[in-house]
């Protein structure tokens, strides 16, 4: 039923995770800030201020990554979207709504928060992990039939 099975890539995923961690550490070392995509994006888009220049630069770097990867390896990262536009819109809206009230997302709470041994981030992370798993189960195995 599912055409979107993906292969288990422990080494590649671990390497990616190490780079993500390295970026978080570097941001703390240089700028003294948590690498939380939510906080960085929301401040850059919704808050005016000269302080935002580092955020714009950082976001630009993020978006350029696939191009750099293309130049270095000859291919872009795979982006296989197994859902339609309505799901992307609804899902996107809920993500945006949720991460603002929740004050963070996978990078802010899940990586940086856990790395700081923050109980608040642990609570948030466990909650969104469980919520995602339940949602996927309902979408893939209950609604899909």
């Amino acid at each position: 039923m599912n055409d979107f099975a993906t292969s288990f890539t422990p080494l590649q995923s671990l390497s990616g995770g190490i780079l993500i961690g390295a970026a978080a550490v570097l941001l703390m070392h240089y700028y003294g800030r948590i690498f939380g995509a939510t906080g960085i994006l929301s401040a850059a888009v919704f808050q005016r201020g000269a302080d935002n220049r580092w955020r714009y630069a950082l976001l630009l770097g993020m978006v350029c990554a696939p191009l750099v990867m293309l130049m270095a390896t000859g291919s872009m990262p795979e982006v296989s979207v197994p859902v339609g536009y309505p799901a992307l819109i609804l899902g996107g809206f809920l993500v945006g709504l949720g991460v603002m009230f929740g004050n963070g997302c996978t990078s802010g709470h899940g990586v940086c928060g856990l790395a700081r041994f923050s109980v608040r981030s642990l609570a948030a992370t466990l909650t969104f992990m469980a919520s995602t798993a339940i949602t996927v189960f309902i979408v893939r195995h209950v609604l899909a039939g």
Partner: protein
Amino acid sequence: MPLFIASLVGLIFGLGISLSGMANPAKVINFFDLAGTWDPSLAFVMGGAVTVTAIGYRWVLKGPTPVFGKEFSMPSVKAIDRPLLAGAATFGVGWGIAGFCPGGALPALGTGVPQVFVFVMAMLAGMWAAGKLRSWLTNRSA
């Protein structure tokens, strides 16, 4: 120099996301599809990222200040309150439906895949709505 460093840090993060599979919604959803086409790869992403960050933070935070700045800006709120949990739960529903989270989607924009753009636009709309909702809730109880 500082801005160049910031863009480099963002690039490193984006490369990590791209390499790890976090920019690939099929892979992300499969990580959570325990009853179906389960792909445990993302556990390695989190494991690697949290480990490196935890070790790195211990080392970095020993210093008095960051390189560019007067102080380390750490989150000060510690309470596990209703907005945190409701927000996290809502985020999870969205993540499960679309397969993208903010950190995953932003680097994915660089691939030019149109669905990413649609997701990010919707996400920004949701972020905007959160601000409006928060104001409304605050005014209501005032």
